[in-house]
């Protein structure tokens, strides 16, 4: 059995690094919509690597506004350690793959500068190399320029495209077809003689984000009871570790439809659960019963004591009243009057009345106490008689099997009734039509007088209507319950069945089967999520067809797969297969998968920042001031600059 325990890796907060970098080194930031990597151009690896997430502190509306937000600051990236609990409040600076929310971007920059340790400097003296999306509109670049130059006062900036830097780092050749699988988008970028052919670049607006959310919803709807336990973090791990791209999707589906293949290959994800407290061991049960008995006994005692004291009171009162009455009979009128006054009694008649009523109540009390003691003695006996035992003259096995048969019979009857009910609910069945016929006959009344019900037999018509519609009878249900209790007591096989069906751990397992190939497949068939664009394989073919045959061949000799989503198992094989189908017969092609697709864009950008071309590619603050706020210098690895006409 393939049981997976998904662990959510909590983030570790980034440390604050020391700043001791010469100002000729550039600050390299790969600002991706999934993750942001930042570091100096003289470092081996990006120093910071965090998810581009922002968590703003939220003021509790119920609390006073003046309450200072103690320990509440904006948290970013790895500082958010409780990702799932705040998932809904996370903000990002991105709209699709473009930075649009610059107040969030400002927070991200603050975070980067603080963690690189430069925040205490008087001014920032390093050039900045920042990646941006292909085709980033001028408006947003202008905003970025404004933020960098006006707010942070940086000396110069260089914008580049992450996929092109990735190509630079992987150095496949001067002719490359880059296929970049990003978080929000997938790009197909043809590069000939080291120059990006920007007019033939195409973008599929699908990426890891869509895969994650598709799988998330699929699993949630498959298991609605675990809707809150299926978190995005878990889905991400599931995609990273247990999903793949099918070589032949239809063939894979055919295999999954076979039940044996399914049981052999299905992965079961064990969710955390709490074992419900079981019905209690027999010993526990006995103790409970004992306790209950003890309690009832004590209650009865208390009641009896109370009744007894009341009885005594009344007897005393009666005795006193009788003595007063005697005084009246003897003729001691003065004393008698005083006694009456003392007890608020008007005259002799009233006295007689109270005496007689007291007598009656006393008598009643005596009889009732006798009754209750009888009940108390009888009650436990009734309960024990409920546990049925096999008749002494029949062997146990035979008795059990008989009961089993009876139970099956009742179950069968219930089943038949249910089927009949369902049948009756449909309009076209014979039963339903007969019913409608009777009802319409009843409604049809040509005499114009309604004497239905005058004759008692009239009501029998409902018996014929409802004949097939009766609900499960009470007695059947009761009997079923009785049989089941007997069986669970005397039939070991029955008990086992019941336990198996209610295995708790299994209820908390998610079956992960077709979904493992279904979710990543949306890259190849966007129609799966209702996206009208063509799949990545078709898009590659489309882009290739924009070139003459010889250039097509040069491009396919160096296909580079990069971007986080290119790490799906089976992606290279699938693309090979698709290309083999689409390319002319017997023409070669070569696919390279980037060895470290997550950070090679940053590494390529760092290499570029250390090259001689870098200084010529910088947009200086003076350029920003003179040539327009949306101006930037374009170079080999950047977008083209088109001034608005």
């Amino acid at each position: 059995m393939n049981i997976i325990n998904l662990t959510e890796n909590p983030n570790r907060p980034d440390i604050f690094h020391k700043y001791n970098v010469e100002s000729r080194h550039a600050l390299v930031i790969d600002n991706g919509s999934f993750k942001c990597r930042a570091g100096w151009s003289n470092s081996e690896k990006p120093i910071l690597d965090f998810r581009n997430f922002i968590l703003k502190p939220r003021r509790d509306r119920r609390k006073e506004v003046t309450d200072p937000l103690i320990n509440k600051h904006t948290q970013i990236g790895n500082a958010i350690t409780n990702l799932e609990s705040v998932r809904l409040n996370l903000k990002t600076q991105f709209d699709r793959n473009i930075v649009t929310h610059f107040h969030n971007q400002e927070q991200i920059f603050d975070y980067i500068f603080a963690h690189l340790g430069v925040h205490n400097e008087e001014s920032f003296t390093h050039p900045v190399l920042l990646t941006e999306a292909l085709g980033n509109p001028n408006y947003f670049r202008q905003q970025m320029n404004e933020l960098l130059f006006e707010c942070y006062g940086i000396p110069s900036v260089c914008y580049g495209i992450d996929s092109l830097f990735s190509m630079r780092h992987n150095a496949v050749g001067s002719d490359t077809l880059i296929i970049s699988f990003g978080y929000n988008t997938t790009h197909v970028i043809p590069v000939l003689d080291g120059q990006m052919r920007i007019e033939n670049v195409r973008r599929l607006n699908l990426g890891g984000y869509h895969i994650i959310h598709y799988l998330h919803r699929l699993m949630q709807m498959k298991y609605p009871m675990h809707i809150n336990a299926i978190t995005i973090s878990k889905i991400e791990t599931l995609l990273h570790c247990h999903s793949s791209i099918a070589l032949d999707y239809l063939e894979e589906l055919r295999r999954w439809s076979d039940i044996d293949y399914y049981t052999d290959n299905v992965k079961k994800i064990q969710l955390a659960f709490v074992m419900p407290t079981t019905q209690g061991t027999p010993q526990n049960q006995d103790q409970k019963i004992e306790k209950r008995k003890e309690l009832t006994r004590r209650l009865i005692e208390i009641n009896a004591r109370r009744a007894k004291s009341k009885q005594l009171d009344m007897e005393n009162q009666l005795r006193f009243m009788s003595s007063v009455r005697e005084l009246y009979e003897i003729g001691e009128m003065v004393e008698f009057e005083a006694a009456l006054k003392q007890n608020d009694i008007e005259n002799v008649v009233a006295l007689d009345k109270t005496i007689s009523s007291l007598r009656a109540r006393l008598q009643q009390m005596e009889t009732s106490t006798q009754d209750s003691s009888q009940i108390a003695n009888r009650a436990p006996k009734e309960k024990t008689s409920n546990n049925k035992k096999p008749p002494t003259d029949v062997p146990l096995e035979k008795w059990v099997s008989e009961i089993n048969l009876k139970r099956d019979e009742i179950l069968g009857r219930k089943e038949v009734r249910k089927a009949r009910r369902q049948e009756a609910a449909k309009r076209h069945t014979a039963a339903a039509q007969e019913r409608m016929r009777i009802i319409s006959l009843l409604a049809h009344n040509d005499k114009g007088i309604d004497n239905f019900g005058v004759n008692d037999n009239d009501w029998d018509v409902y018996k014929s209507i409802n004949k097939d519609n009766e609900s499960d009878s009470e007695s059947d249900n009761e009997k079923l319950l009785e049989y089941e209790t007997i069986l669970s007591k005397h039939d070991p096989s029955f008990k086992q069945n019941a336990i198996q069906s209610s295995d708790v751990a299994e209820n908390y397992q998610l079956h992960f089967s077709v979904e493992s190939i279904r979710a990543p497949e949306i890259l190849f068939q966007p129609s799966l999520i209702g996206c009208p664009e063509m799949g990545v394989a078709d898009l590659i073919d489309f882009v290739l067809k924009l070139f003459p045959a010889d250039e097509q061949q040069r491009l396919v000799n160096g296909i580079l797969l990069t971007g986080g989503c290119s790490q799906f198992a089976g992606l290279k094989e699938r693309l090979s297969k698709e290309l083999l189908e689409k390319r002319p017969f017997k023409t070669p092609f070569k696919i390279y998968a980037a060895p470290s697709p997550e950070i090679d864009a940053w590494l390529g950008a760092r290499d570029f920042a250390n090259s001689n071309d870098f200084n010529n590619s910088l947009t200086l603050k003076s350029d920003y001031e003179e040539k327009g706020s949306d101006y930037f210098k374009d170079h080999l690895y950047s977008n083209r600059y088109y001034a608005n006409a």
Partner: protein
Amino acid sequence: MSEEPPKICFKNPKYSYIEPGGKKHVFKSLKQILAVEKTQQWPEGAMTYSSFNAPPSLRPPKKYSDISGLIAPYTDPHSKLRYANAEEYSIVKTLPSDIVAGYLALRGASSIVG
């Protein structure tokens, strides 16, 4: 929780995204800007964000079961869900309406015009 984030000394203190009235600056969305870009005049051969979009698919979309993902030859006329076999149909019949709507939305088929 987190400690106080350190102050960035070289930051221009006057630069702020909160406007003088105390109102937050409203950022234009990508969609708005793309609409503007379409109306603007561009030099010959210029590529804007929208011109990179992949063309629509020319293949007829394959029909997969909403529930299992298998090839689905049938559609339930009542819920409009696709299903692969009788067993799945019995599941489709019992699905509550929110799940049905969820599956349709996931496939992008929840539009009335659709």
